[in-house]
């Protein structure tokens, strides 16, 4: 029984370690990145999300072909859903790549 207790203490110490590490990571070395604060589709109602508009959708894809997260583009949840859908449609008809940079090829 006494052995079990000592094990418990060990666990608690581990947890404390983890907490410390998290604090350290969050503090200093992170640079501030300015982010767009408004969803461009909410502020500009004329800007329609269309799977055929490659120039527009290309801005929401990073250089590896992945859909960029909302925290980078500032898109609101609703429009992000629509953008994601449009990108997937565009990929199916080979307007956007599933992977890789398509500007390199086109220019």
């Amino acid at each position: 029984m006494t052995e079990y207790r000592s094990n418990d203490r060990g666990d608690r110490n581990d947890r404390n370690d983890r907490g410390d590490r998290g604090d350290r990571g969050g503090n200093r070395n992170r640079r501030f990145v300015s982010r767009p604060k408004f969803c461009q589709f909410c502020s500009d109602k004329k800007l329609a999300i269309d799977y055929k508009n490659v120039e527009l959708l290309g801005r929401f894809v990073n250089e590896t072909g992945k859909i960029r997260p909302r925290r980078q583009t500032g898109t609101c949840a609703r429009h992000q859903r629509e953008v994601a859908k449009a990108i997937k449609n565009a990929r199916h008809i080979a307007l956007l790549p599933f992977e890789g940079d398509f500007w390199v090829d086109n220019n």
Partner: protein
Amino acid sequence: MHKYELIFILQADLDEATLDAAVENIETLIKNNQGEIAKTDRWGKRKLAYPIRKTNEGYYVLINFDYKPEEVAALKRTIGFNEQILRSSVVRVD
């Protein structure tokens, strides 16, 4: 009847006459099933974002049309049988 948008990619190495025939073929297919074509837009040859069937180019055609929703699945299937078509998609626009 709902509004739909059909986009399909034809093989780019076909000559003009066969391309025209293929587009007309699809148009008559839609019309024969009581569909109404609003607009056909030929984008022409375009580079594909990734190779399909080992080709890097495709001839894009976009057709806006009205169609019965219950017939769309059958339309998609018959388009799929066409070997000249590399890729196609039907999207509802309302």
